């Protein structure tokens, strides 16, 4: 996919929303109902629902918590669009108000990891970081559950977020001591260096890959609008 740089931020937001929603409905038929698609006229649509946002509306939604979708598309299939919008709102509420709740850790992490993966695939500076890591994976999990998500790439193809552990040993693993630590990390409220030192996160395997991943995630944090600033 060829993504113009000026569309990277809204596209990353859309991918994050979808990743959170996928985690919310994991295993359900509707798990992919917000899979985003990049459209012309600087619009991004979510699944087959008819729900679509202008790029700048998505950015506004991330900053303010609210934005108006493309009404013409919305009204073409109002029922599915409304259902989709509800899902987006639910994801937004979790990010806005529920980020301290340990039960939301995976939903929050899904968004954060997907955002980083999107930057690893499209942001020129981040793409360059991973040139030397063609076949690599990072397992993410908690002490309680072990690895439950994996970021991986095969043969220099794009990086992808899997919402599960993969069979092969990960190149590196990032394990949170608690769901609370995972929540804080997902919204950028965990100092990665301190957390590694005090045991809130455990880093194992190819540490340089984790350092690059961590740096990419901080580039995302710097560039993406957020209500947690």
């Amino acid at each position, binding site marked *: 996919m060829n993504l113009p740089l000026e569309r990277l931020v809204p596209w990353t937001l859309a991918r994050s929303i979808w990743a959170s929603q996928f985690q919310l409905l994991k295993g359900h038929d509707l798990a992919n109902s917000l899979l985003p698609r990049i459209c012309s006229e600087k619009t991004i649509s979510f699944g087959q629902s008819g729900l679509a946002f202008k790029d700048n509306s998505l950015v506004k939604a991330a900053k303010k918590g609210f934005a108006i979708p493309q009404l013409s598309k919305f009204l073409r299939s109002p029922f599915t669009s409304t259902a989709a919008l509800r899902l987006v709102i639910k994801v937004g509420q979790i990010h806005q108000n529920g980020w301290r709740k340990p039960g939301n850790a995976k939903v929050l992490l899904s968004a954060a990891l997907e955002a980083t993966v999107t930057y690893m695939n499209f942001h020129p500076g981040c793409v360059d*970081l991973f040139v030397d890591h063609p076949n690599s994976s990072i397992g993410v999990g908690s002490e309680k559950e072990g690895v439950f998500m994996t970021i991986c790439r095969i043969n220099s193809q794009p990086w992808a977020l899997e919402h599960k552990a993969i069979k092969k*040993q*990960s*190149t*590196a693993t990032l394990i949170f001591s608690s769901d609370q630590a995972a929540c804080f990390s997902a919204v950028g409220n965990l*100092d*990665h*260096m*301190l957390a*590694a*030192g*005090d*045991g809130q996160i*455990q*880093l*194992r*395997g*190819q*540490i*340089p890959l984790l*350092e*690059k991943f961590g*740096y990419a995630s901080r580039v995302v944090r710097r560039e993406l609008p957020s209500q947690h600033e």
Partner: protein
Amino acid sequence: MNRKKSDTWFKRAGQVIPGGIYGHVAPAAGLPRSFPHYCKQAKDCRFTDLDGNEWLDFMCGFGAILHGYLNPKVEEAVENQRLRGSVFNQPSTLMVELAERMVEAIDFADWAVFAKNGSDLTTWAIRVAREKSGREFIIKAKGAYHGVDAWCDPGLGGRIPSDREKILEFKWNDFDHLSDLVKKRRDQVAGIILTPYHHAAFAPSEMPANGFWQETQNLCKSEGIALILDDVRTGGRLHDSGSHKYFNFTPDMAIYSKALGNGYAISACLGSEGFRSSACDVFLTGSCWNDALSMAAANTSFELSQINGVASYIQKMGNFFSSKLEILTANYGVPLKMTGPPSMPYPFIEDDSNLYKIQKFCQSCAEEGLYFHPHHNWFLGSSHSESDLNEALERVEIALKRYKLDM
């Protein structure tokens, strides 16, 4: 292992120091919950952390300690100078003595300058090379560490593209690649900066291939390129008079630091006559760079190495330790290999490209009070005796039993 005080201080540090502890000693670079955050005191090859845990050390302050922590002769020299002062408006004569001592011992050198860190002088040396040749490009080996400056640092932040526009990289030991780079930039390459062998972090060390140094030296000579030896990490541990002697080649300039002051911050760049004039034209200074305490330490430390043949001794001890360690671990089915020179071996376990096994092994050893780094070469010093090394091997055996159970 008790780490209560260490954790408390780390928490305090996190309030006022970005990351708490940064750089090569940042917790994430090692084994954060196995290694202590802070040290309290050290003597010879052992140190005590803040919580009173005692460690048998194999990092020697990441190489800065060559003659053992608190070496009595070095400390005496420093103490004598301390009574007279440390930093003055002018340098002390200790600086001249140190320059004379080093120039006499290091065969290619006709002059010496001093600073505090390796980076101060690796960066300065490439500028001297540029000044002499009027050329812009510098060649280095990919993955080699030459310091914290933007042209070479291994970090990720704070860089702009122009920082490295004039830096070319080749794969260590690939002379054809190096030669191609020079040909493509004929009359544009000012210097080639290399470590004596390739000691990248997170990877086994690579010794130079047969003929690599000779070919590189010849290439530099024929193309008018300065050959700069970064002997910062290795200086004093391969040969008492510079690591080029160990590998039998002649650099134009060489930088020494880590072990030079046995724990007192000092670095030195030594160069051949042909570079003296350019050296005068590249500005070099620092308020505390003439510090007489570190000059006193370096004079004594360098003299100790020359008199006692320290490099040979630690090579011998390193050989003893590495070979015994490989045999011991093999007996437990752990294919540990010690790479690089025996005085500063880098450990890796076969079939462990992702490093989980070496991390677990070093973690098990840490529980026995052994400071074995999983991602960085270890350092031996003259204070490591055969008895210390045998004690370490006994502790490794206990650790191996636990390691096998855990794996």
